[in-house]
């Protein structure tokens, strides 16, 4: 790190002497400490622990449940990400993978089980049927689990390959750690092109762009020092 700073050895020696005397103040001291220590807050450490030890709830509803089971098996091992301990009790689980079509008879049951889970909890809607009703646009299937419960990750596919579900699971891990993946609108600089944003005129309005940017801005940034 000292090499990147381009300082000479003599300058570093002078700064070390200043710190030991108590002469480094404010910004200088912070920079000095940040360079030399792995600073972390408790929250970051906890989130790292949570992300790498998520306990999914056994919730196989239909065909996607079989692919979820095969994700647990040795070929598409989910144990390398720490989530092979599927808990049957919602009180012990962190994450619910809604694998399969949610029928109208099952929806209250799903909601009840979700409510019994303890915070923090996350939801992966696996497959097309739980994301949006899938191919079944009829009286018996709820058109998307996010009609009655908040969903964090949607994994497309019918059924999604286990690798696709693992990809979604990795995204969830990044979300849990506090550094969620950028959505495609940020990546392609298309914020403000949402349907609601261009409803009236067909073009994104400046207020809409600003509102969207605020909505998707990351909560903590790596570059800002934590609430100094």
């Amino acid at each position, binding site marked *: 790190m000292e090499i990147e700073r381009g300082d000479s050895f003599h300058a570093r020696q002078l700064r070390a002497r200043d710190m030991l005397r108590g002469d480094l103040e404010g910004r200088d001291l912070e920079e000095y400490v940040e360079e030399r220590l792995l600073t972390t807050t408790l929250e970051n450490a906890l989130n790292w622990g949570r992300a790498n030890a998520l306990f999914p709830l056994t919730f196989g509803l239909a065909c996607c449940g079989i692919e979820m089971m095969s994700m647990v098996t040795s070929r598409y091992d989910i144990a390398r990400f720490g989530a092979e301990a599927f808990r049957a009790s919602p009180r012990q689980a962190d994450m619910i993978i809604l694998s399969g079509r949610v029928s*109208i*008879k099952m929806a209250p049951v799903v909601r009840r089980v979700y409510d019994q889970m303890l915070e923090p909890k996350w939801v992966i809607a696996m497959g097309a049927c739980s994301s949006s*009703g899938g191919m*079944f*646009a*009829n*009286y*018996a*299937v709820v*058109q998307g689990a*996010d009609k009655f419960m908040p969903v964090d990750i949607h994994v497309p596919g019918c059924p999604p390959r286990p690798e696709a579900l693992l990809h979604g699971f990795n995204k969830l891990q990044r979300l849990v750690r506090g550094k969620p993946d950028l959505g495609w609108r940020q990546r392609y600089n298309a914020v403000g092109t949402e*349907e*609601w944003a261009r*409803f009236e005129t067909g073009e994104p309005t400046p207020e809409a762009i600003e509102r969207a940017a605020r909505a998707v801005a990351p909560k903590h940034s790596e570059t800002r020092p934590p609430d100094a």
Partner: protein
Amino acid sequence: MPDAPGLELIAQGIDDGRAGTVIETSVEHGKATLIVNPDGVLHALRWLRDTEGQGYRFLSSLHAADYLPATPRFAVHYELLCRERVERLNVKALLPDPAAGNGSSPFGDEPLPEVDSCVELFPTAEFQEREAYDFFGIVFRGHPDLRRILMPEDYVGWPQRRDFPIGGEPVLFTHNEIEAPRWFE
């Protein structure tokens, strides 16, 4: 399958026991069908099961169908199988819709078509008759426990009738996003 003359003999045998049961016989696509009067269904099934030489003791499937707009509207199909001779026979009971002409939709307390339950002849019919009741509203008289099996218990309406809407939501495209309510509204 019994061929056409064999089927005629069967129809004759059933009619001997109780006249006016068999309305029609037909053989098509390799399948033999007996169309019977709904009042004589139990007699026909019992005859087919118990008579020497017939022995259709296995009920493969009991399902209902809705022939709207043809009348009679409903039919209950009994797929019988004789395992010794590996022969299948279909018995079809045509049921008129008692609520026809009232202009009622398939919700609410309209009168329901009825037929006798064959659970004491073929215990396998228990779940399958419940399914026919659940989806078409056909009441099976004498069924021990007739209630909905696949739909929620308090559901109103008979989903697989032809005039029941298929449900679901309209797919959101650009051309209809003005009218369709969006998720954030």
